[in-house]
């Protein structure tokens, strides 16, 4: 009888919906209908994300390039794959990725995290995690006692639970659980706590949303970026590539900046945009340059620093479970 009750408790727990602890008026992330958020899938995704079985040579996991303390970036200009191959782009933050319409620097077609996860897992140009179909990855999960329980709770109604489709579903659920909504700016803006940010940050917020700077036109919404539009930022006089405007949440801890990690500081980024970038025929017309006094520049940086959410950087729910 006691065993039966315990079994029931596990089954009930496995289907428990995941709830974000969001402040009032903060938007709720979008979730695809075919992959609802459950506590069990989020937990499985966390184990997978920190597991080096996820790479061909067992040297890397998702967390190798997405470190919690760096807002799930890696601190390097460009990402380095598990075989040492350098990516051409920097590792993007996973914080609030649930709100993003675009999931890569410049690929508009990938709009679901379940699809995006396949790129680092199986992509060959460049190799990131280097997995290949039939290489024994799923077998290594199936033979692991920890994963047997995790997969059973995450996908209790499936007979063949150990599939790539379920792996990416779980990883996507974990990614969607990583929500930053408790920064000092959030307490100021959503909870109306005037003491949460400095007067300098308050002035910087107004600059951010003002016409001459127009930062908000690309980095808009509650997530300060991640929208569906792509832009050429005038980073070079020859590169015609357009890029998404990533979230600015926790931006103070995600240096170096830009898609190629070419700018070491926020000050350097502001220098780039205030100068109007490098002219090229593809540069977004919004990048036309502006003037800031030294005080205004400090205010704008203070505002950006107010977007750092220490809670999400240290929340044990997002930490390595192994």
């Amino acid at each position: 009888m006691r065993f039966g009750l315990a079994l029931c408790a596990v089954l009930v727990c496995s289907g428990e919906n995941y709830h974000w602890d969001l402040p009032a008026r903060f938007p709720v992330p979008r979730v695809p209908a075919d992959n609802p958020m459950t506590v069990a899938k989020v937990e499985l995704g966390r184990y997978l994300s920190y597991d080096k079985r996820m790479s061909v040579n067992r040297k890397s996991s998702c967390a190798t390039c997405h470190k919690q303390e760096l807002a799930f970036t890696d601190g390097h200009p460009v990402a380095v794959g598990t075989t040492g191959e350098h990516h051409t782009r920097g590792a993007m933050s996973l914080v609030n990725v649930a709100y993003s319409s675009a999931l890569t620097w410049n690929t508009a077609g990938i709009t679901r995290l379940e699809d995006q996860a396949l790129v680092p897992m199986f992509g060959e140009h460049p190799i990131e995690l280097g997995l290949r179909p039939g290489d024994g990855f799923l077998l290594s999960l199936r033979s692991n006692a920890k994963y047997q329980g995790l997969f059973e709770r995450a996908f209790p109604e499936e007979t063949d639970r150990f599939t790539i489709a379920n792996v990416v579903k779980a990883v996507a659920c974990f990614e969607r659980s990583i929500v930053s909504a408790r920064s000092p700016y959030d307490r100021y803006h959503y909870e109306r706590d005037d003491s949460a940010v400095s007067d300098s940050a308050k002035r910087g917020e107004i600059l951010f949303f003002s016409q001459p700077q127009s930062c908000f036109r690309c980095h808009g919404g509650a997530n300060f970026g991640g929208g569906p539009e792509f832009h050429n930022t005038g980073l070079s006089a020859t590169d015609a590539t357009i890029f998404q405007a990533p979230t600015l949440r926790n931006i103070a801890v995600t240096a170096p900046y830009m898609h190629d990690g070419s700018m070491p500081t926020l000050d350097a980024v502001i220098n780039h945009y205030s100068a109007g970038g490098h002219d090229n025929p593809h540069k977004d017309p919004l990048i036309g340059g502006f003037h800031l006094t030294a005080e205004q520049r400090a205010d704008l940086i203070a505002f950006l620093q107010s977007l750092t959410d220490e809670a999400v950087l240290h929340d044990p729910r997002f930490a390595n479970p192994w």
Partner: protein
Amino acid sequence: MSRRLAVFALVCTAIGTAQTLLTVQGDIPSPVTLKAEDLAQMPRETVTVQDQDGAQVKYTGVLLREVLTRAAAPLGKQLRGKALTTYVLAKAKDGYQVLFSLAEVDTTFANESILIADQRDGKALFGYQGPLRLVCPNDKAGARSVRMLETLEIVQLQKK
């Protein structure tokens, strides 16, 4: 505390003092300045719109039409002939500007409920949004919902 007093207190708390929040000027008999207490005593309206993140947000304030009427802009029976070439240039503190025609807000023409809001979800607007902003419920894009609104410039194009 009466409703109007409560609104007045809310807005004054946000801006600190009863300073001029909005100036209406241009082709009207004389300029009009409005403080928080003036807006609190005018007819109040609430409109619900969807924000950029898909959330339903309630804005409360005074209809643009009411403010233009108070400034003696040509509305109603006066809005005919040359007066129909009159527009309103809405200017923000940061230099942003958009325009509306008088016919857009007049009850006998488009009758749009464009709002000069001082509250969002019952709280005074602050920071980059306030103390006043426009809300245009029927605009598909948000670009005319001017934040940090300071001035309404009335311009009649056809003078002769």
